């Protein structure tokens, strides 16, 4: 599972860095989407859909609204990746 977590973290960093045009080094576990990356709801929807497509998971609107940091997004995905 540790490997999966690193992979997911890398995927999230890659997506955010590309879509938000921010330096990868700016993206850490504790990075907050809205406050630190200036991401808005549309940015978060795109991240959620990217993760859904990549890992075959489903993120409800309610779950998505509770995710505030990069680390929380990674935890959410890792906990739901099919074995």
């Amino acid at each position, binding site marked *: 599972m540790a490997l999966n977590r690193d992979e997911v973290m890398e995927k999230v960093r890659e997506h955010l860095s590309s879509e*938000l*045009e*921010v330096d990868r080094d700016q993206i850490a576990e504790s990075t907050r989407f809205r406050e630190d990356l*200036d991401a808005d709801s*549309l940015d978060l*929807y*795109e991240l959620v*859909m990217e993760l859904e497509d990549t890992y075959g998971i489903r993120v409800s*609107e309610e779950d998505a609204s509770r995710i505030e940091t990069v680390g929380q997004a990674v935890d959410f995905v890792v906990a739901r990746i099919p074995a």
Partner: protein
Amino acid sequence: MTVVALDGRGAERGTAALVEGARAAAEEGIELRVFGSPGELAPLAGVAGVELVPAPDRIANNEEPVAAVRSRPDASVVRAARDVAEGHSQALASAGPTGATMTAALFEMRRIAGVRRPALAIQLAVPGRTGTPTILLDVGANSDVRAHDLVQFAYLGSAFAAVVLGVNRPRVALLSVGEEPGKGTAEVVEAHAILSSAEGLDFRGNAEGRDLLSGAADVIVTDGFTGNVTLKTLEGTAKAVGEAVRSAARAGPRAAMGGLLLRPSLSSLRRGMDPDATGGAILLGIRGVAVVGHGSAGPEGIANAIRLAARTARERTVARTAELLERAGGTRGALRDRKDD
């Protein structure tokens, strides 16, 4: 060959109007993949260049677009948008609910790299002026915008006017409440300052509401709230003036005689200002082409929406818009860096 994915459901004036519009476009050589109920679309079966793709689910006008698009992957508009994203077709056209069409296009095709907020653009016919219409954007995709969004809208509109309408160096203006740079909301004032020194644009400063139909600018930029109110005001005014002219022309024998003489010119003017004439609005800033037909589009409106979608795809508008944004420093990262300097 350009293939247009047509949402075969949701047209307010019914499937018959959609079928007739699709048939007219297909007869001109535009290939279509039409998503909807095979039973309803049966009149299109066997039409050269038309392929029917079963998609029995539909998103209604009263549904919340984001939730509906995310939970209904087999809805006709979602299937059609995905068809473009997967490369089976090159453009989406829909006369269904605007919110669902925009959301499906945005979620399936995604944004052009560096675009923060896509914008909905409409072509406004300028009365008495033949040829190129004025582009107004945003007319409804984003109620709240930042200055950088307005700057990006300027690039999106300029690229569309140049690439699709063939305008050489489009003149761009910001809609505000006065011509002076300091007039308007904080976002408009900041956008004005950025655009004044922006590369790759012919920025002409602020435009006022009275300039919308004067031909003073080729592209007029505003936020989606103001743009939508402006558009509906124009449509309502045009309708009221048209009715007043008709009423005046029936006021007596002499007026009727004058009305008869003016009829050909007035009919031509009315056709030019008919929302069906331009094919509807286009969502700019996404990695694909998506045209949202006018809500009450008839056969000609549907056909024009398909034609606009095909032409926009043929001209490589998305790639050329992305190139302009990158070259001119109009991406969100470049604009942010500039602000930080």
